[in-house]
């Protein structure tokens, strides 16, 4: 493969952005890329990025599948808030918050609630036929209210060693949160590429009526992806609430749906549905997380943060767009001698 072909790959520019952000951070703060062993686990900028991107990656993975079916799920942030609220209020209310059984039970309850939200979303989209953006808007707005009611409008704080492990723990020297995300990524990849689920999702996303006539259970598949999306958002909610050991219903996962959609798009999955790329979503999540972290490292002035973020995202999206790529290629080609039209 020549250089041109590499540059045309849809993940080329996102990866360039990722490298540039890392290099810039490392230039500003040379210690940034150093990975050291501290208290028996790895510590350093790259480890931080992995751990931090786990939340976004989880949400974006579910979002990828939903978007592949021509859908969108705006309720993921609210589901995160609900997951944290249910789990932590149950742990806080239990007599033994530090017990592993308490934590597992609380997480199971939260997962059940999140799955119910996913089933509800999927029902509205696949069965009732409401447009996904409208259907999921219901829980996007109402979900936080539910989480607030569960926590009684307070930030529920708990002390529970097993729960804290989710976000702050390490296993084999690696952050547990990153391992969870990696595991879910692996399972999703297996589920979609080792079974026929992936190609059926794509088929439904590209042409729903043709897929139905081909015998594909389009309805079931669409329903399933919303449930999967909610489940992944729930796990993300665990990590987020474990991170601060508090259920902050107002802020947990606030606006993460936008970041997730962005990660999916940067990863090369079209919002029009169809072909999706999990690897692309992984890269997209890393880019966005690194971007957020590098803002602190680079010391971007507070007032310029939004602008800086927007500029990086716009640059990546523009460079990726087929139109711009085409223009850049034809400009290069124009230099080469081409047969010119002969006047008649």
């Amino acid at each position, binding site marked *: 493969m020549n250089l041109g072909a590499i540059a045309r790959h849809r993940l080329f520019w996102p990866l360039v952005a990722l490298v540039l952000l890392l290099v810039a951070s490392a230039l500003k703060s040379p210690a940034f890329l150093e990975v050291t062993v501290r208290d028996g686990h790895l510590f350093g900028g790259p480890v931080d990025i992995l751990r931090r991107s786990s939340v976004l990656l989880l949400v974006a993975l579910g979002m990828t599948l939903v978007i592949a079916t021509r859908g969108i799920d705006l309720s993921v942030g609210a589901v995160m808030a609900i997951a944290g609220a249910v789990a932590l209020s149950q742990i806080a209310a239990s007599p033994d918050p530090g017990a592993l059984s308490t934590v597992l039970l609380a997480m199971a309850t939260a997962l059940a609630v999140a799955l119910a939200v996913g089933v509800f979303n999927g029902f509205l989209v696949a069965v009732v036929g409401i447009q996904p953006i409208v259907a999921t808007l219901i829980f996007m707005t*109402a979900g936080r209210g539910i989480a607030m009611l569960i926590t009684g409008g307070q930030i529920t704080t708990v002390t529970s060693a097993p729960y804290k492990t989710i976000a702050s723990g390490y296993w084999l020297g690696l952050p547990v949160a990153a391992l969870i995300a990696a595991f879910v990524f692996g399972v999703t990849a297996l589920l979609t590429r080792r079974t026929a689920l992936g190609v059926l999702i794509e088929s439904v996303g590209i042409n729903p009526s043709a897929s139905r006539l081909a015998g594909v259970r389009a309805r079931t598949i669409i329903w399933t992806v919303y449930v999967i999306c909610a489940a992944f958002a729930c796990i993300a909610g665990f990590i987020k609430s474990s991170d*601060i050991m508090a259920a902050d219903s107002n802020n947990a996962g606030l606006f993460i749906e936008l970041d997730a959609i962005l990660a999916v798009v940067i990863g090369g999955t079209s919002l029009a549905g169809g072909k999706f790329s999990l690897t692309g979503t992984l890269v997209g999540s890393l880019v966005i997380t690194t971007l957020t972290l590098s803002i602190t490292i680079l010391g971007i002035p507070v007032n310029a943060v939004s602008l800086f973020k927007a500029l990086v995202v716009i640059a990546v999206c523009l460079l990726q767009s087929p139109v711009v790529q085409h223009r850049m290629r034809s400009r290069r080609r124009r230099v080469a001698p081409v047969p010119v039209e002969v006047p008649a």
Partner: protein
Amino acid sequence: MVSRTFRTRAMAATVAALALGLAACGSSGSGDSSTDAASGGGDSGDLITVGFSQVGAESGWRAANTKSIQDTLTKDNGFDLKFSDAQQKQENQIQAIRSYIAQGVDYIAFSPVVESGWDAVLEEAKQANIPVILTDRAVDSEDTSLYKTFIGSDFVEEGKRIGEWVSDNLGTEPINVVELQGTTGSAPAIDRKQGFEDATKGNPNVKIIASQTGNFTRAEGKTVMEGFLQAYPDIDVVYAHNDDMGLGAIEAIEAAGKVPGKDIKIVSIDGVKDGMTALSEGKINYIVECNPLLGPDLADIIKTLQSGGTVEPRIVTHDDAFDQAAATAALPTRQY
């Protein structure tokens, strides 16, 4: 296992939240509103109708503030409170104030999300002859006739008191300070930064090496602090504009294998329960209180105005300051 109460509660929540989310698109998505939105109009017998627009529920401090107002402005005390949560968005807040004007409430009170951009809507309130009371946060309007009074803490003073304590107790040798700012553009963020800078200006030992917004939330406080720890290996002091960001910073510092309160000192403002607990445990070193219990003061002001009296254009609430010993002593009796 799902308990019966929990299930009922969640169910009620779903219904309530759905109704809210669908009926009032964007005006209030949280189920926090305590008053019936349907009963409009300022004509409710002898009760004084007060429309209150809260910033949001971004922190423990705000939750205590909300509770104090809701507990004071009750029907028993002669008030009909219309409460709305702006979810930290100015547009929501302007919308809420407009709807209060339309309903013809007797008084409007609100904590502005940001300082600027209020002239138009406050002018509308003035035209409608509805007195406006600012609580907790100020606006930057030149025209002070747009509101009756501003009741709340003096944020510059709070920053100054923190700055003085840092300068006197820690600034005896060269120290590197990182600052976790509040929401960009909000009055407490601007003023607390200003006060701290004023107080430490004279001490060459105190050096602010980085400043970034943590949006007053625990999660963002933690994220930003993690970045600081990566970028600056020699941080001595964290100055957090509120306790929640300070609590987030504690998590980040512990994750980095350092001891909060010892390796890296933490000072913050607010004095909420979680913050005070951390202070008594020695994880935070100094807290300047910012009293959230504005309810009784607000009620007094309204009553005074209602009986034809006048109030000062600026009413500063009394704030305490705590170190570890004071916090431990105060904790058992704290209301929030």
